[in-house]
């Protein structure tokens, strides 16, 4: 049925954002068409917010053919988890939250020390959730520009029963013919925005007027300077003795576990200003803000082999 009398005029050729969006819609519909029990990972972060808009474009006026899942480390910013819950409610979609803290209580996650970053332990909780619900595919918002292990990963990435990625044994992926077949217990990870870069994400957020958690925008926050980076002072990350607490204008380029996600100094208080900053930035997204990727040259590759996204 026509809902409007005036139709939107389609240009002859798709812009780069239209093309990326269309590719991502196509990928999500392939998951829906090929998999029997998929799930979409939604953290409340900017990449997964873009994925929700793509999912709306892929499936509305129907409901999403998958629930949303967040693997919560228990150390997430309140602004982000509140946003996560509200966004799922507004969309009328089912949100499942599974917590690393539950895995700790079960004894399947054992921390080396109480303040150890919990990001890498999300793999365990994710695999437990996959088993609990019998998911055969997990849709995630990872991008190939983030990291060199991701640059070589397929859009449909096969994982064995242990959730392991084997870079030497990937399925060939040709044209737009995706192979999501798996046996029971195995799992396919699907990355619809593989071909997007950080600036594409921001341009898409601007174009689609997508709402973001407030901590993506410049705000004042107490921080300390530690090993060359800025660390937020929070309940779980207190200042150490001898450190000076500063109140600085900062914003987050990525949001994740509090203990390993650092903000950058910025006064960008709008998406347009963030785009302008991103276009002239001199540090990669993960280099600036992900403390857990800096430990070793191959740390992402290692974590992916262990079942990480």
């Amino acid at each position, binding site marked *: 049925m026509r809902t409007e009398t005036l139709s939107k005029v389609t240009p002859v050729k798709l812009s780069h954002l239209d093309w990326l969006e269309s590719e991502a819609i196509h990928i999500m519909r392939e998951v829906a068409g090929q998999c029997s029990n998929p799930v979409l990972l939604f953290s409340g972060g900017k990449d997964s917010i873009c994925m929700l808009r793509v999912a709306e474009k892929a499936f509305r006026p129907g409901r999403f053919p998958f629930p949303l899942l967040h693997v919560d480390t228990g150390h997430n910013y309140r602004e982000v988890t509140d946003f996560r819950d509200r966004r799922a409610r507004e969309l009328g979609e089912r949100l499942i939250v599974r917590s690393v803290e539950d895995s700790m209580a079960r004894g399947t996650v054992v921390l080396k020390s109480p303040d150890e970053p919990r990001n890498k332990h999300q793999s365990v909780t994710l695999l437990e959730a996959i088993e609990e619900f019998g998911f055969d595919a997990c849709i995630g918002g990872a991008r190939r520009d983030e990291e060199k292990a991701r640059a070589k990963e397929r859009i449909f990435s096969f994982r064995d029963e242990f959730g392991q990625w084997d870079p*030497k044994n990937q399925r060939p992926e040709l044209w737009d013919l995706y192979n999501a077949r798996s046996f029971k217990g195995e799992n396919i990870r699907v990355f619809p925005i593989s071909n997007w870069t950080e600036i594409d994400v921001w341009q898409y957020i601007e174009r689609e007027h997508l709402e973001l958690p407030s901590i993506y925008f410049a705000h004042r926050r107490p921080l300390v300077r530690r090993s060359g980076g800025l660390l937020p002072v929070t309940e779980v990350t207190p200042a150490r003795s001898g450190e000076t607490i500063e109140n600085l204008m900062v914003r987050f380029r990525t949001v994740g576990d509090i203990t390993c996600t650092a903000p950058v100094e910025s006064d960008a208080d709008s998406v347009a200003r963030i785009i302008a900053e991103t276009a002239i930035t*001199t540090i990669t997204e993960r280099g600036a803000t992900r403390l857990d990727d800096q430990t070793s040259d191959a740390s992402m590759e290692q974590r992916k082999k262990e079942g990480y996204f």
Partner: protein
Amino acid sequence: MSAIERLPSAAVPDNGLLRFLTCGSVDDGKSTLIGRLLFDSKTILADTLHAIQRTSAKRGLDVVDLSLLTDGLQAEREQGITIDVAYRYFTTGTRKYIIADAPGHEQYTRNMVTAASTADLAIILIDARKGVLTQTRRHSYLAHLLGIPHIVVAVNKMDLVDYSPATFAQIRSDYLTFAAGLGLTDVRFIPMSALQGDMIVERGERLDWYNGPTLLEILESAPAIHSAHAEKFRFPVQYVCRPQDSANPELHDYRGFMGRVESGELCVGDAVTVLPSGRETRVKDIQVLGESLDRAVAEQSVTILLEDEIDISRGDMIVKSGELPKVAKQIDAMLCWLSESPLDPRRKYLLRHTTRDSKAMLAGIAFRVDINSMQHEVAERLVMNDIARVRFKLAQPIFADLYTESRGTGAFIVIDESSNNTVGAGMIV
């Protein structure tokens, strides 16, 4: 050209996205070329640059080795090999680029075929000191086989032949001789030095005898694949939207057919035929997220609503009436075998074409192609990296076009159901 000047704005037209492939080995300077494109387009950020500066210094180099930008995985560094296709990104402000970087040696055919399947343009690197080699012919043949419409022959390392115009002219002439035999039509030649940065993004000062465009200018002006010629409308149905349980009673009769336009375009009111049923109707609406569009163009993901109630499911195809594809239960194709297990003529495989799967059996191998000499040879079976002309018999019909006419509806993959692996890639001839 600073980054801020390249910021996309309303004044700069968005020239869409171009996917290209670089063919060549590390020795041809491929990694340096990609590094140069990323570096000169200011895609490389300071922390990455510092990291490769440190590594370059550690290896005793006095200049930054841009090839380190494409340095791969831990497993690759340990074994000194390149495993797989890597995808890299840069933008000029008017156009976004996706580079498919296929490794030069190991499993070359398999990787290049994968990378080429989505490319609009191929850059074939030639070392100016070595000229046209067997691998140049192999790369060109595969680029042509996979239907890449634009070929750029990059004669690299001109700095090592004193920027000699005679050397460049000789290579150009050698290449054109065999390109004519392949049927390559759109070939452009460019002399360059990726190491020095000549004719990549900047012209440099050492190739003043060359009046053609720089590599980036060629990339900026190359038409993306679907703008080349008018194509027939093909819409494989991926998913059917029937929100009967919706709270909105208006949606109880809603039937939206969801998919991506593989080729051609469709307008509201057009007469369409649904395959395999052959039922005809008209397009009532084209929607994306509740918004109606006047038409859908190639590569656009949309939802189509039809005038009449027709039973349609995933795997069916909507086409314009009068532009029907071939309904085929037997296909002839060029097949690339991608698996370590050889093609077994006695086994049944799964053939996936658009959104449709069918059991398939080999009905014969006409010939295998020696991709170095391009000679045809007799073959009883196919092993990994083989390319052959084959015939498949199918259990279910597919709605097929020639690959040369429509990539999306002329291509298929072969899946081994015992492993679920993708084992073959085919192009219908």
